C-alpha cells in the first residue's frame, strides 16, 4: 500500500465480481479515484472514510490538481487537526458518477471505447456506498472507525450505517437528511434544466461533439450556491454593495457584488466539474429515501445497530434544516441506538460544515475522542512497519 502520507491512486474494481447497481446494470472493472492521508495502524482499526458532497472530490487536504487550490476540508483534516492524520488513516474516494477519476459519464465506456455520456447508468447513493465498500475490500480494511460526511456525504454515511452496520464503529452525518424533500428535488431540477437547456449540452453528447455546456452548468452552480448560504450570511458578505462602481449602470452587467460573486462561483466551477456528472449526482440525491426502503419506518434501517452516531445540524441551514437531522435522531432513538445530536448555532447556512466553526469542531472532536476510547483504539500508535 502507499506509504506516501498523501497517497493518491486510481484502482479498477469489480474485475472479479461486478458491482450490481440498483438500476440493474452491472459495472465491471470500473475505475475509482481516491486519496489517503495518515497511516493505517497494524490493527487496521483507525480508518476513517470521508464521504464527499455533490461538488466535492477526493482532494480533501491537499492541493487540487485542476484548480491548484487547497483541499475542500483542509481546515479539518491534517496533523493535529480535527481529523488528525497522526491518529487516523483517512480515505476519501471520488463518488460513483463523479468526474475526478471514478466511473461516471465522463469516463470511457469499456464496451464502446467512447465516453459514457448519458449511456452511463443512473446511480444511487447506495451504489456509491457499495463502490466505497469495494475500495475498502481492495485496501483490506474490514472495519471503519468512522464514516463522516456533510450534505450528500451525510447521506452516504447513513447508507453505510444501514447497509454495512457491522463494518462501521461510528457514523457522523452532518447537515444532511434521510431523504430529499420536495424543495431539495425542486432546486436540483432547476439546476438540471439549466444544463439541459444549454445548446452546447447536445443531448448529453457534448464530449463527442467537442462542446461544453459551460453556461448551463454555471447557472446550475449559481442556483445551488444560493441554497448553501443563509440570508444573513449573504447580507453580511454583500448587502446591496456595488461591484467596483459608484452607482448602478442601468444595465444588466453585474452591478451588485452578490451578482459578481455568483458569476465567479459559476465560472470557476465549470473548470473542474462535468455537466453530466452534475445531472447524475443530483439524481442520486433526489432518489435517496432511506425511509421508503424500510416501508416508511426509518428506525428499521438501523435496527440492532452497534454503531455510535453523532448527528450534527446548523441552525441557519435551510437546505437540510435541523428538523431533518432530528428525524434521523428520533429514528435512532426508536431502536435505542447510541446517538448524540447537536444543533450548532451558526449563520453560515448549509456551508457551515466546511468553515471554521469552533463549536462544531469542539462537539465533533469530543465525540471522536469518546468513541476512540470506547472502541479501544490503541492509543493512536502507528504501525511499526511503516
Amino acid at each position, binding site marked *: 500500500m502507499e506509504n506516501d502520507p498523501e497517497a493518491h491512486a486510481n484502482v479498477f474494481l469489480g474485475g472479479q465480481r461486478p458491482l450490481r447497481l440498483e438500476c440493474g446494470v452491472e459495472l465491471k472493472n470500473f475505475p475509482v479515484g481516491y486519496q489517503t492521508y495518515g497511516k493505517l495502524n497494524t490493527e487496521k482499526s483507525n480508518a476513517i472514510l470521508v464521504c464527499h458532497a455533490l461538488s466535492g472530490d477526493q482532494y480533501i487536504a491537499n492541493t487540487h490538481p485542476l484548480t491548484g487550490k487547497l483541499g475542500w476540508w483542509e481546515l479539518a483534516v491534517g496533523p493535529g487537526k480535527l481529523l488528525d492524520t497522526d491518529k487516523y488513516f483517512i480515505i476519501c474516494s471520488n463518488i460513483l458518477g463523479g468526474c475526478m477519476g471514478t466511473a461516471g459519464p465522463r469516463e470511457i465506456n469499456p464496451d464502446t471505447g467512447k465516453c459514457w455520456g448519458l449511456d452511463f447508468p443512473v446511480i444511487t447513493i447506495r451504489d456509491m456506498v457499495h463502490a466505497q465498500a469495494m475500495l475498502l475490500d481492495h485496501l483490506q480494511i474490514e472495519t471503519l472507525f468512522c464514516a463522516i460526511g456533510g450534505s450528500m456525504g451525510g447521506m452516504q454515511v447513513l447508507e453505510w450505517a444501514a447497509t454495512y452496520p457491522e463494518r462501521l464503529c461510528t457514523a457522523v452525518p452532518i447537515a444532511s437528511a434521510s431523504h430529499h424533500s420536495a424543495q431539495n428535488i425542486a432546486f436540483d431540477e432547476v439546476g438540471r434544466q439549466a444544463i439541459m437547456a444549454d445548446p452546447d449540452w447536445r443531448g448529453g453528447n457534448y464530449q463527442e461533439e467537442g462542446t461544453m455546456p459551460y453556461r448551463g452548468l454555471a447557472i446550475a452552480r449559481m442556483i445551488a450556491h444560493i441554497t448553501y448560504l443563509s440570508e444573513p450570511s449573504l447580507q453580511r458578505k454583500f448587502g446591496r454593495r456595488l461591484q467596483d462602481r459608484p452607482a448602478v449602470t442601468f444595465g444588466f452587467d453585474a452591478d451588485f457584488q452578490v451578482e459578481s460573486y455568483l458569476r465567479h462561483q459559476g465560472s470557476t466551477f465549470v473548470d473542474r466539474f462535468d455537466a453530466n456528472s452534475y445531472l447524475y449526482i443530483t439524481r442520486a440525491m433526489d432518489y435517496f429515501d432511506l425511509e421508503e426502503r424500510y416501508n416508511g419506518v426509518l428506525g428499521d434501517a438501523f435496527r440492532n445497530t452497534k454503531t455510535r452516531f453523532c448527528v450534527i445540524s446548523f441552525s441557519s441551514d435551510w437546505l437540510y434544516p435541523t428538523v431533518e437531522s432530528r428525524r434521523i435522531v428520533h429514528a435512532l432513538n*426508536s431502536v435505542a441506538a447510541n446517538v448524540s*445530536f*447537536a444543533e450548532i448555532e451558526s449563520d453560515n447556512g448549509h456551508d457551515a460544515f466546511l468553515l471554521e466553526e469552533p463549536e462544531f469542531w469542539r462537539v465533533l472532536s469530543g465525540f471522536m475522542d469518546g468513541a476512540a476510547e470506547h472502541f479501544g483504539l490503541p492509543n493512536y500508535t502507528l504501525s511499526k512497519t511503516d
Partner: protein
Amino acid sequence: MVIEKDRRVIRIDLQLIADMVVPGSRVLDVGCGDGSLLDYLLHEKNVDGRGIELSMDGVNACVSQGLSVIQGDADKDLFNYPNSAFDYVILSQTLQATMAPREVLENLMRIGKRAIVSFPNFGYWRVRASLALRGCMPRTKTLPHEWYDTPNIHFCTIQDFVRLCNNLEINIEKSLAMNSRRLVSAIGSRPFAANLMGEQALFLLKRNSD
C-alpha cells in the same frame, strides 16, 4: 500542597442517584445538564449511558466530553424510545418543570425497567411557612426563582407524588428525603415527617406489572 485531582466528585443528590444504579446497566438521563452524572456513571459504574438535554449549551458540553447526548425535551422526545429500552431512566430535578408530569412519568416507566426521579418537595416546612405565614410564593435555596420567571410549573409534595405513583400502579422500591443540611432519611416509615422536613425527594420506581 498537592491536591489530588478527582473529577468524579459529584453533587450529593446526584451521588444518591448514582448509588441506586447497578454497574453495567443501560441508563437514560433525562435533563442531564452538563453531563456530570452521566460522566460519573460512565466511568465509575461502567454504564451504557445516554442523555437528553434541553439547552444547547448543555448538549454541546456533554457531546464535547464524549457523552452520548441529544438535544431534546422530556415532554416531546420520550415517545420515540421503545419499551424497556433502558434499565434506568433518570429524571433529576426536572419533573416539576415539565408540561405534563403524569405523561412524562408514564413514559419513564415505559422505556425504563426502573425510573429514578428526584424533585423539590413542595411540602417542605419552609415552603409551607412562606405561604402560610408570609403569604408569599416560596423562595428557598432549591427554589430560587420568582413566581413570574420560574421554569417550575408543576410542583408537588412527597405525598402528592406517592399518590400519583399509586394511581399509576408504580412500585416505590426506595424513597429518600434530604433536608436542608443534606441529611438523608428514608421516607417509607415516616412519610409525614419526611414530607415536612424533606427539602428534596428521591424515588426509585419500578413497574408493578413486572
